[in-house]
């Protein structure tokens, strides 16, 4: 019975790759590297073109945005909770973070669309105005709605609970004798954190961030709600379109032909492998940190 997880994981990999095999076979490497997606009618004799490249890159762009916004906030929050917050405030803030983790993703999608997006568009305009000379903040036309930037912020909020709690756990395990050694040498709290806590916790934070990345890569409905999915590579995060594998599957699903459906299953397989690798790496790093105490 305990092997059930092995069975399930194997079955997922097996079925998705088998069902998607046709797509892999007909498209070859183009399935990963191509950036266009044209589905022909079944039996029309026309050729299907399925290239997931734009979606893969889009997924990575959004997840990277989420990490850039979410990880610093999480680390600051974890440091505040572990070393600065007064006891009563600490309990309150911990339950707030737990509460965040319990919100369903569709709630983030709904809130992201109706509340966050108007604000985030304004922030995007400001960033473009002052930092537009940096290529990724440039926008060819003033279209800021449903951009990778906004999807990234929603994802950042969604990964904050996991990154914060992993970081907090690691920080709390900083050996007390090292902390005391630093204080006994006349360190302030911040000097102590810099000399002892951050070197100790750094790789744990990296692991936590990767767990967050795993979550961000596979998030579906929240991203779908706030992202304009277009099959075209876009690195300009403020510009109003992007790609995302999970959301793309949901978007195309309803009216997919049989062969396109199989391509979508193959896309699911690609996503499965991506998240699996990221998660295994993350767990490896977190566990190694806890074990070696370095």
């Amino acid at each position, binding site marked *: 019975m305990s092997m*059930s997880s*092995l069975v399930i994981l194997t079955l997922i990999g097996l079925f998705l790759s088998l069902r998607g095999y046709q797509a892999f076979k007909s498209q070859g490497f183009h399935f990963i590297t191509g950036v266009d997606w044209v589905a022909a009618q079944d039996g029309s004799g026309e050729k299907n073109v399925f290239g997931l490249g734009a979606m893969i890159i889009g997924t990575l762009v959004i997840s990277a945005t989420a990490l850039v916004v979410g990880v610093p906030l999480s680390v600051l929050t974890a440091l505040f909770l572990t070393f600065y917050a007064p006891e009563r405030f600490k309990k309150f*803030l911990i339950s707030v973070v737990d509460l965040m983790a319990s919100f*369903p993703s569709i709630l983030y999608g709904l809130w992201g669309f109706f509340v966050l997006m108007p604000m985030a568009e304004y922030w995007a305009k400001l960033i473009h105005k002052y930092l537009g000379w940096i290529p990724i903040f440039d926008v060819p036309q003033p279209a800021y709605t449903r951009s990778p930037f906004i999807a990234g912020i929603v994802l950042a909020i969604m990964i904050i609970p996991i990154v914060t709690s992993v970081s907090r756990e690691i920080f709390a395990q900083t050996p007390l004798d090292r902390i005391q050694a630093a204080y006994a040498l006349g360190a*302030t709290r911040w000097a102590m954190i810099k000399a002892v806590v951050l070197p100790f916790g750094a790789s744990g934070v990296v692991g936590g961030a990767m767990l967050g990345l795993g979550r961000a890569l596979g998030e579906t*409905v929240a991203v779908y709600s706030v992202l304009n999915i277009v099959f075209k590579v876009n690195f300009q995060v403020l510009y109003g379109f992007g790609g995302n594998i999970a959301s793309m599957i*949901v978007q195309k699903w309803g009216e997919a032909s049989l062969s396109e459906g199989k391509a979508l299953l193959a896309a699911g397989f690609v996503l499965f492998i991506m998240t699996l690798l990221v998660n*295994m790496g993350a767990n490896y790093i977190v566990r190694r940190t806890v074990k070696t105490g370095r």
Partner: protein
Amino acid sequence: MTTTYVPTVSPTRPWKKTPAQLIPTVVILILALLLDVSVVAVTPMKGKLAYALLFFLFSVGMQFIYAWVKRGRPAAMDSLAGAVTMTGGMIVFLPVLSILVTVLVKGLPGLGLHTFTQTMEKTSYSDPLSSGGLLHAIVGTLYLIVIATAIALPLSILTALYLTEIKGRAAGFIQFLVQAMSGVPSVVAGVFIYAAILLTTNLRGSTFIGALPLAILMIPTVTRTAQEVLLLVPAELREAGLALGATQWRTVATIVVPAARSGLITAVILGVARIAGETAPLLFTLGTTDKVNLNPFTGGQNALPYYIWSGLRDGTEGGVARAWTAILVLLILVLSLFTTARIFGNRKAKR
């Protein structure tokens, strides 16, 4: 000879800040606020963002300078770090507050008795909010929870028992797999069940099929929580059982599991909370319906997250308003599950 010593002095904490020492901080905050308002009034910078940003800069900057003048550079850096980390914590708090307020404000208008007694069978999105309800979606969600739990619970508990009690040769590997499984995106679980069942057999989407991906998502959560609570069962209890000549299996079944019961309930509740709001897998597996369907094996089903999704996708004013009401109900469900799990967990910790 034991004498009771009565101290003639009372305990103090000279390292705690006295109210008098807080005065500079308060003065700085007030100054920062005044400066903030006047700068926003004079310069072209406008809006809430400008207020917040400038207030942050002014208050942190002045505290930094004050600490530097009074106690030197290390103290100034410490004050800066304290302020920056606190701001980080505050920023994290803001979206939660905004989400809760938004859900209440937008969800409450549609909420009424009819929400829980009517379905959408005879109501369309354009009808007033006072007609039609979520009964069918609530029933569907409860069905999904019960079936997913029935599938995931035995698998998870047995896996947890294997990992904590039997500790077989494969334990390390299985632990690794459970962790890998917790990273499976929900959409992948959905398309997997679609590919494995709906595409392979001629079954149609139903409650039972919809519960399968949810069970996949639930297993790692329940396994890991159950593992933690099983580890809390004192080793003496196990040894006592084994010393009485019971087999390991009997010891586990009659001593360990009952001892960990309330913790295992917590594990299940957390698992349920994890899946109650899942949307993506249902899109591939649930079929759909607008009325109450009590048969879990045939006919489509609805569920709260699915209902919200449909309303949002519809995009009309009525559809979105109904989605907000449904999310309010879903949120109340999830939060009460979490609160229950916490109460159970705390009781466990206290014993």
